[in-house]
């Protein structure tokens, strides 16, 4: 411990009391602490800094996990909701076709189609199609109607009111309005069915019975339509009708409606409307993406991380010009080429929004220059002697390590990553040329880095995923966005997209930055992206 004489004091009195004596002697006294005290203090500061990092890191991880959870929950909810909407659209379609049936009935009421012929024609339609339930049901109905027509034709019991009525219809082939037939076949609303039945049977011998049965069915349907599966509710009365025809005596009042067949044109129109929604898998498109960008790691090694165990030389040199080496590194940092390939799967949420995810691999390059042998936030160790052979002028010349070379040497950095991106894209799914825009995020792993000092291959540093002393953060997160043009030829199952892409890291590339979150430097890239994808030739996302 060395002491120095106290500095001159403002009170120049040569004598004084005890307080004055001590105050004068102690006020400006200086005692140089022992040399190693700063090293201890530095270490203590690093330890404290690391504890702060750990707390921050833990917090950041929880936030990242919460964000991912929120994102996937929202995505799942959106998909489920879309699926439910597509299911309920069948029910809506049923309601819609009901009014269509009414229109058909009105039309057919004027033209009065031939019941037996129409039934026969409809009965010839193929049945059992797995993809067209309505077709199958209509065909079954056709069979039923055909049989009914035959039955009515062959009826030999004039005393039977039903048979007589059927025979009358079969013989005349006219006079039966389509209204009840259509509405019963469609089986949608019995309010209109009731009206139709009344219009058909007005003046007939069964007005009261017709009305009452139609009303009864209306009530039944109304009850059934309250069931939890709206998509099937429209079909239920139809099955009930068929069961009545096959398995037992069906009500007489249904006969007229079942016999009534819509015009082929009207039926075709109705069938067009009965096309099922697009299959879920048809919304999926698989593809590949290539992106080339200018990548800047934007690392700020300042206030280097104490958790990264540095060698003794680094620790010794750090005390003298670490900050200058870091500043020089950042000043000479240049962006390099970044290439990214990805295999993607795109799922059309609706006709405009598409969710894209996949797996991607990327390689990024960057360069800098150093006159301190400063690589990856540290000084090179064994090569220090060579680097510092050419001694230059320096403000600090205390000790051999205090002199740095004047000539800078290029350093090259290469980073390889593997990531899972999740993006949401807005654009048209129709064939032709259209614009798109997308935003998303990616979570990836830094698989490896390689840092080279020009002219000193032995100084190259390689870090892999398992390197515990890596100064780089292994888990990387980023947000990205882009916009461009998409082209899909008509009737083609593939499409091309070309656009810009921008990516900004949410995390720093260096492992443990000491700066506050807002002051941290994060990597970024700007470039172009081309992608191709394959899927259904039809616009997958377009829903009826």
């Amino acid at each position, binding site marked *: 411990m060395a002491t120095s004489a106290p500095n001159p004091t403002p009170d120049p009195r040569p*004598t004084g009391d005890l307080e004055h004596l001590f105050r004068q002697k102690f006020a400006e006294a200086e005692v140089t602490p022992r040399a190693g005290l700063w090293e201890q203090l530095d270490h203590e500061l690093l330890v404290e800094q690391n504890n702060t990092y750990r707390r921050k890191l833990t917090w950041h991880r929880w936030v990242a996990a919460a964000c991912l959870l929120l994102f996937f929950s929202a995505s799942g909810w959106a998909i489920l909701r879309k699926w439910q909407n597509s299911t309920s659209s069948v029910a809506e379609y049923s309601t819609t076709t009901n009014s269509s049936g009414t229109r058909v009935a009105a039309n057919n009421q004027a033209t009065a189609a031939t019941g037996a012929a129409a039934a026969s024609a409809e009965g010839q339609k193929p049945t059992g199609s797995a993809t067209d339930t309505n077709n199958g049901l209509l065909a079954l109905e056709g069979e039923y109607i055909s049989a009914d027509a035959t039955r009515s034709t062959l009826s030999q019991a004039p005393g039977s009111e039903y048979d007589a009525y059927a025979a009358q219809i079969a013989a005349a082939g006219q006079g039966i309005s389509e209204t009840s037939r259509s509405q019963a076949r469609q089986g949608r609303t019995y309010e209109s069915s009731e009206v139709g039945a009344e219009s058909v049977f007005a003046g007939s011998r069964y007005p009261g019975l017709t009305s009452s049965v139609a009303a009864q069915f209306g009530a039944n349907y109304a009850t059934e339509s309250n069931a939890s599966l709206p998509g099937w509710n429209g079909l239920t009365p139809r099955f009930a009708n068929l069961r009545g025809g096959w398995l037992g005596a069906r009500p007489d009042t249904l006969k007229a409606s079942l016999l009534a067949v819509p015009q082929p044109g009207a039926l075709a129109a109705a069938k067009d409307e009965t096309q099922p929604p697009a299959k879920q898998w048809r919304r999926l498109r698989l593809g590949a993406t290539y992106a080339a960008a200018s990548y800047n790691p934007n690392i700020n090694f300042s206030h280097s991380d104490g958790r990264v165990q540095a060698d003794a030389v680094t620790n010794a040199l750090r005390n003298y010009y670490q900050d200058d080496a870091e500043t020089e590194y950042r000043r000479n940092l240049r962006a390099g080429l970044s290439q990214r390939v990805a295999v993607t799967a795109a799922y059309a949420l609706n006709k405009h929004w598409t969710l894209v995810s996949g797996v991607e691999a990327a390689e990024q390059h960057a360069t800098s220059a150093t006159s301190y042998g400063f690589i990856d936030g540290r000084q090179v160790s064994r090569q220090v002697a060579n680097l510092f052979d050419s001694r230059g002028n320096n403000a600090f010349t205390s000790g051999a390590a205090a002199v740095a070379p004047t000539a800078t040497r290029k350093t090259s950095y290469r980073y390889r990553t593997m990531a899972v991106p999740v993006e949401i894209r807005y654009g048209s799914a129709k064939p032709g040329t259209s614009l798109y825009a997308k935003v998303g995020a990616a979570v990836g792993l830094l698989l490896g880095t390689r840092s080279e000092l020009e002219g000193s291959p032995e100084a190259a540093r390689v870090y892999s995923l398992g390197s515990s002393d890596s100064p780089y953060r292994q888990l990387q997160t980023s947000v990205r966005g882009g916009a461009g043009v998409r082209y899909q030829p008509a009737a083609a199952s593939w499409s091309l997209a070309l656009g810009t892409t921008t990516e900004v890291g949410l995390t720093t590339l260096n492992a443990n930055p000491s700066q506050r979150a807002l002051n941290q430097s994060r990597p970024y890239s700007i470039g172009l992206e081309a992608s191709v994808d394959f899927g259904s030739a039809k616009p997958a996302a377009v829903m009826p």
Partner: protein
Amino acid sequence: MRQLTPPSQLSEAELIDGCLAGSRLMQKYLYERFSGRMMAVCLRYAQTTFEAEDVLQEGFITVFRNLGSFRRECPLEFWIRRIMVNAALRQHRRNAPLVAVSEGEYPEELAGEEFTLANYGFEDLLAIVQELAPRYRMVFNLFAIEGYGHKEIGEMLGISEGTSKSQYSRARAILKSKIERLDAQSKHGHFRT
């Protein structure tokens, strides 16, 4: 290569800003600029050099941790000195139960003395202050050197104002006695330099 600014030419504001930006070099410069004077402060409050170094280290950690709250309304040295004194007080509280107060036979009142400043060196005065019992040393430093009142000192040390006055009086008597002994030694050629 960029020419470095010598640390002696850095202003206080530059040092503070550099430290706030996380520059370890600036932290080192700040330490180097103030560590000498603060070590002298810590030595006054501590009984040994090791203890003083502990206080100095704890004090500087507090400085770097709380530098952002320094409002620059007073010289940085005053602020750091206050932190060092507080660190010394914390150290004293930690060690107080282990150290017994030596109760010597000293006169309660000593007045009218006149010392020639040039006759005494810093190391001599520091040595006799460090020989004081911890409580006396704390009270003497806080009252005579730092300029705190007895009421404040009582609050700092958890003692009454009267106790602070009494202990200061005893400390003063001890110091005067030792200084006189020092004078006697110097007259016989044993003055330490």
